[in-house]
């Protein structure tokens, strides 16, 4: 049964008794997962037990996921887990079933005894899943029931990551399950201090900033996604360049194809590496505009350095290369709005409506000039 949140953000159609109550069957996660170290006997059965420390396999998986490899299958079975040796008084922390979310959480809490309730977010992290609603009110209510949580702990408190708040309504959870949602800090690394403070957040713990370290982590995924489009494009352009007039195929690829391939790569470098890393220092608000600036810098850097390799390159072809670099840089810089933690969908929509016509025009003119230079 699905219920869509109404415009006011409340689950209007949710009766006080849980919808589909009785359909939720009791289920503990399998202990047969690589990161489970044993089981803990509880009133509801054997709960899989994990440790805070990450092993090589956990780290390798995270590293690959950051490069966009195996990211979709990097999951944890939803349900209740024990970190250390928790008892009925231990806190319950809620997480997503993206393995990296789960790992970040447990590795932030060495030496602690607590429960982790993993929601089924289809392998997606807390923030993104909350935006989709899979990290949401109904899923949490179901998971509480399916884990018979009220028999495992004597208190009625859940610590939910603050970044999960877009997905669930604390007052609805309370009304339907009796559990009170306490929003934890934005960063898992603040959890020990938060817990020691008696679940009170210090001011900085509630703010989502976007420091260099975090932007750096996002770069590989951006690069991989860009190359998925960029490499086929480069291959096509190389193949076409070989047909240029007045030159043998191989020589034409060298003279016209290589610079074009470099122009595409310069754009990708500017849009997916330079723009994210230098974000706060690049002037302007529009990401597409920032991309044009970093694109200019990359273009000037690369072709300033290699210009002598192509002495016969004419103005038309140079202009074409520049336009291609700027367009690609602008596009991928704009795509980075999806990964930031401060751009609003309304803003992104406005930016795209303005930028895409310009980007499309620049790309068409750029490729047109290039083809003209090669074939006329």
């Amino acid at each position: 049964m699905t219920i869509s949140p109404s415009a006011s953000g409340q689950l209007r159609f949710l009766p006080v008794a849980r919808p589909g109550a009785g359909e939720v069957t009791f289920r503990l996660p399998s202990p047969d997962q690589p990161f489970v170290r044993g089981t803990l006997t509880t009133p509801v059965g054997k709960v899989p037990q994990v440790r805070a420390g990450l092993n090589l396999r956990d780290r390798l998986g995270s590293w690959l996921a950051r490069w966009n490899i195996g990211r979709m299958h990097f999951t944890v079975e939803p349900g209740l887990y024990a970190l250390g040796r928790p008892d009925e008084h231990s806190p319950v922390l809620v997480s997503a079933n993206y393995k990296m979310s789960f790992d970040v959480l447990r590795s932030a809490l060495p030496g602690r005894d607590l429960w982790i309730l993993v929601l089924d977010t289809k392998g997606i992290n807390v923030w993104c899943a909350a935006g989709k609603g899979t990290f949401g009110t109904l899923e949490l209510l179901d998971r509480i029931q399916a884990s018979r949580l009220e028999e495992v702990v004597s208190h009625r408190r859940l610590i939910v990551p603050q970044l999960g708040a877009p997905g669930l309504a604390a007052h609805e959870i309370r009304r339907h399950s009796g559990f009170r949602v306490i929003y934890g800090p934005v960063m898992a690394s603040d959890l020990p201090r938060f817990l020691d403070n008696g679940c009170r957040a210090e001011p900085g713990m509630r703010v989502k900033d976007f420091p260099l370290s975090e932007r750096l982590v996002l770069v590989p995924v951006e690069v991989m996604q860009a190359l998925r489009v960029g490499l086929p494009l480069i291959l096509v352009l190389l193949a076409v360049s070989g047909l240029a007039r007045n030159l043998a195929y191989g020589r034409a690829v060298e003279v016209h194809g290589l610079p074009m391939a470099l122009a595409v790569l310069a754009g990708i470098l500017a849009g997916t590496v330079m723009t994210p890393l230098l974000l706060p220092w690049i002037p302007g608000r529009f990401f597409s505009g920032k991309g044009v600036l970093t694109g200019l810098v990359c273009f000037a850097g690369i072709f300033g350095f290699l210009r002598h390799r192509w002495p016969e390159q004419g103005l038309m072809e140079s202009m074409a290369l520049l336009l291609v670099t700027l367009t690609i840089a602008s596009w991928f810089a704009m795509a980075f709005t999806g990964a930031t933690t401060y751009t609003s969908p309304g803003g992104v929509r406005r930016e795209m409506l303005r930028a895409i016509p310009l980007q499309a025009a620049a790309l068409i003119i750029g490729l047109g000039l290039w083809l003209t230079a090669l074939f006329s």
Partner: protein
Amino acid sequence: MSELTYLEDVVSLAYDRNRCIGCGMCVTVCPHQVFALQRGRADMVARNHCMECGACMRNCPAGAITVEAGEGCVRGVINELLGIEGPCC
């Protein structure tokens, strides 16, 4: 770095101060400190910092806040413009 601000005046956030019961939930959940409690009620103090995540609206028990929350990625907007459903991240 909390000073990173995106475009001005595009935010769809609307707040009806008369409905507010001063619970402070919006202040707690907002990752950009858009709300602050003042004299027993919430005030929007940094509207342009809103990223339209919807956390405040979803967690306001008084229904005092509305915002067009959505997924703010390029693919999401393209899908929306083309009228197809598609994931963002």
